[in-house]
């Protein structure tokens, strides 16, 4: 077919002609309309729905500030610390501001993503047909954790160094291949210049590329099936004469102005931290990290940055005594599946075999290995959420009231794990962390049962909305 360009009248504005020229060659207007301009979103979004666009903003901030930091940073064990503290913080005009934006941005990113995930959890945003959006989101979360971990080594302070040392050593707990694997990751017998260089490479190019791809996939999938809403009902079930859902509004201008308002509020809080508390009491910039890395001096207390501490707590809670509790947990869980589900006998047999293998493994391998396994599973289990949740309604609004308490208990257990991860361990703290670990995993693994239990409230057919 021959190429036919749409003809505009000769007196059309030059901008319209230019756009027409582009649109004939690239679907610019179509892309804008599909993804935002004519993307119809439910009109009953509340406060919790702002974090998606804020996450996008912080992603852009991190990339832009990161580009400027890389112009002055030296990924070299002998120069890295000084390139941050001398060059960026003192010599480069406004370097301190760019650095604080980047360091505060890292923590802000996690706060936003945790709130974004909480929203998904509360309103069942991950339920059918949005499973893929959720899976891409879990991928983004994993990338973010990778970004944070690799990036944290770069300032080459004591906490950077020993944090990386501890985490890379974790891989050493994997049976058979562990020691060689951690050696391969580090590229040396201790964290060194080789490690710094490869972490730099991962931080500035490898992971950001994957991250951007996943963000694009997350948004394309979202705009394909359409956004969920706090009522957890499908707005596409009620279409208007124009073919758009009756309860939806075009994102532009309504959610544009909405998000701009959210952005300014966010920037206000963000700037308050950058200008008045960039260290945030040692949580965003750890005090120990103002001491250059020293491979011969182990700090008395090594803790990861706050956003990793819940998982770190789970790792530390897995003591050799706790393995017995885990064994009991495995037996109970296999029993639950075998006696309390209607799965086929083939699956039940597989579960029993799996349970037996797990019991043998728990007996044979050291507790540290299972700490690493639990830490990994504690993050990965999020991916199973769309299939674990068997509730007949999506939104917390129409679930039995006691479900809210389950969520609150889970949330508190998660916060306690986070708090304990910052503190040096004591016997009492470890026991508390063990209880919270059971609550954490119990929440997910028992979800197929508890999420279907109780009296559910009637779900409205149209969204609840009060005009502003």
């Amino acid at each position, binding site marked *: 077919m021959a190429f036919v360009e749409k003809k505009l009248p000769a007196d059309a504005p030059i901008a319209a002609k230019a756009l027409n020229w582009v649109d004939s060659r690239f679907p610019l207007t179509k892309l804008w309309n599909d993804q935002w301009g004519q993307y119809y979103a439910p009109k009953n979004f509340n406060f919790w729905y702002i974090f998606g666009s804020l996450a996008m903003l912080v992603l852009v901030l991190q990339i832009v500030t990161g580009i400027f930091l890389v112009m002055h940073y030296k990924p070299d064990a002998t120069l890295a610390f000084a390139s941050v503290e*001398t060059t960026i913080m003192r010599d480069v005009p406004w370097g*301190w501001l760019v650095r604080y934006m980047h360091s505060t941005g890292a923590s802000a990113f996690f706060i936003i993503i945790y709130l974004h995930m909480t929203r998904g959890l509360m309103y069942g945003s991950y339920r059918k047909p949005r499973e893929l959006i959720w899976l891409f989101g879990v991928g983004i979360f994993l990338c973010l954790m990778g970004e944070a971990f690799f990036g944290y080594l770069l300032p080459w302070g004591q906490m950077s160094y020993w944090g990386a040392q501890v985490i890379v050593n974790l891989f050493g707990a994997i049976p058979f291949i562990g020691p060689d694997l951690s050696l391969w990751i580090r590229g040396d017998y201790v964290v060194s210049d080789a490690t710094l260089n490869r972490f730099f490479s991962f931080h500035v190019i490898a992971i950001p590329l994957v991250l951007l791809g996943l963000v694009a996939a997350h948004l394309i999938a979202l705009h394909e099936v359409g956004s969920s809403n706090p009522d957890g009902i499908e707005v596409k079930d009620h279409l208007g004469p124009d073919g758009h859902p009756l309860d939806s509004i075009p994102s532009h201008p309504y959610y544009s102005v909405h998000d701009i308002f959210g952005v300014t*509020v966010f920037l206000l809080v963000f700037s308050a931290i950058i200008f*008045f508390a960039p260290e945030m009491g040692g949580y965003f910039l750890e*005090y120990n990290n*103002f001491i250059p890395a020293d491979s011969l001096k182990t700090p008395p207390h090594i803790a990861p940055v706050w956003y990793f501490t819940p998982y770190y707590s789970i790792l530390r809670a897995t003591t050799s005594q706790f393995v017995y509790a885990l064994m009991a947990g495995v037996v109970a869980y296999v029993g639950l599946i075998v006696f309390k589900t209607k799965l086929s006998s083939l699956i039940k047999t597989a579960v029993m075999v799996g349970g037996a293998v797990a019991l043998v493994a728990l007996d044979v391998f050291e507790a540290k290995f299972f700490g690493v396994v639990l830490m990994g599973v504690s993050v990965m289990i999020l991916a199973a959420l769309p299939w674990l949740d068997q509730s007949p309604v999506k939104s917390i609004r129409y679930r039995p009231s006691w479900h809210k308490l389950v969520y609150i208990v889970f949330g508190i257990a998660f916060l306690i794990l986070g708090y304990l991860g910052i*503190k040096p361990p004591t016997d009492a703290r470890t026991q508390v962390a063990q209880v919270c670990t059971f609550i954490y995993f119990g929440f997910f693994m028992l979800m197929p049962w508890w999420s279907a239990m109780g009296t559910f409230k009637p779900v409205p057919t149209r969204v609840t909305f009060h005009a502003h």
Partner: protein
Amino acid sequence: MNLLKKLIALLTLLPALALASEEGYPLDHAPERTKDLAAVQHGAKLFVNYCLNCHSASSMRYNRLRDIGLTEDQIKANLLFTTDKVGGLMTVAMTPKDGKEWFGAAPPDLSVIARAKSSESGTGPDWLYTYMRTFYKDDSRPTGWNNMVFPNVGMPHVFWELQGTQNAVYTDEKDAEGKVEHKFDHFEMIKAGKLSKLEYDTSVADLVGYLEWMGEPTQGLRHQLGGWVLMFLGVLVFLTWRLNASYWKEIK
């Protein structure tokens, strides 16, 4: 339901139960000096004269001292060693290896020491302020000095001429179980220094003020600018809030 509520209450209490108090010499609060230029300048003088022989501040350039109101000529005349350039970094000739041999540990770089020494017990300046005032005579140490905040520290008391020489007086206290505890009671001045206690405390506060400023020379600008940024964003929040409201009133 009730049981669950109790469980939640218990869960929220757990962290408090798990808390353990951290022991150590209580830190005195360092007076705020970073905005007092004369004090910071005095601190800079003390720093260059007393600290910068063993300790470096290798992230700091001499000419940055213009930020605390000194001219380049003043810096050259008073604070610069003959071999240094005014745009150069505050480095020292002593190598870390020498430092380790002479003092048992290489003297740390002091560029960001005021930030590094922060902890749950107090801010970095609090730590430094207390540290520099709690040296006492201890003949069991190679240098003849020991310190309350940093026990068995390798550094001698460089300000001994200013502060004087003090002894640490301990008392033996019996606790409830009858165990005798050797507890620090007070310092006893055995040889007066050139400065009175008040003058010495002030001098240390000035030095700490300088160290705090040096830890982040832009902090004054940061605070100043921050006020304007927040004011601007405050106005912007108001405008975007009204913009949002004006669009959303169409939605019924």
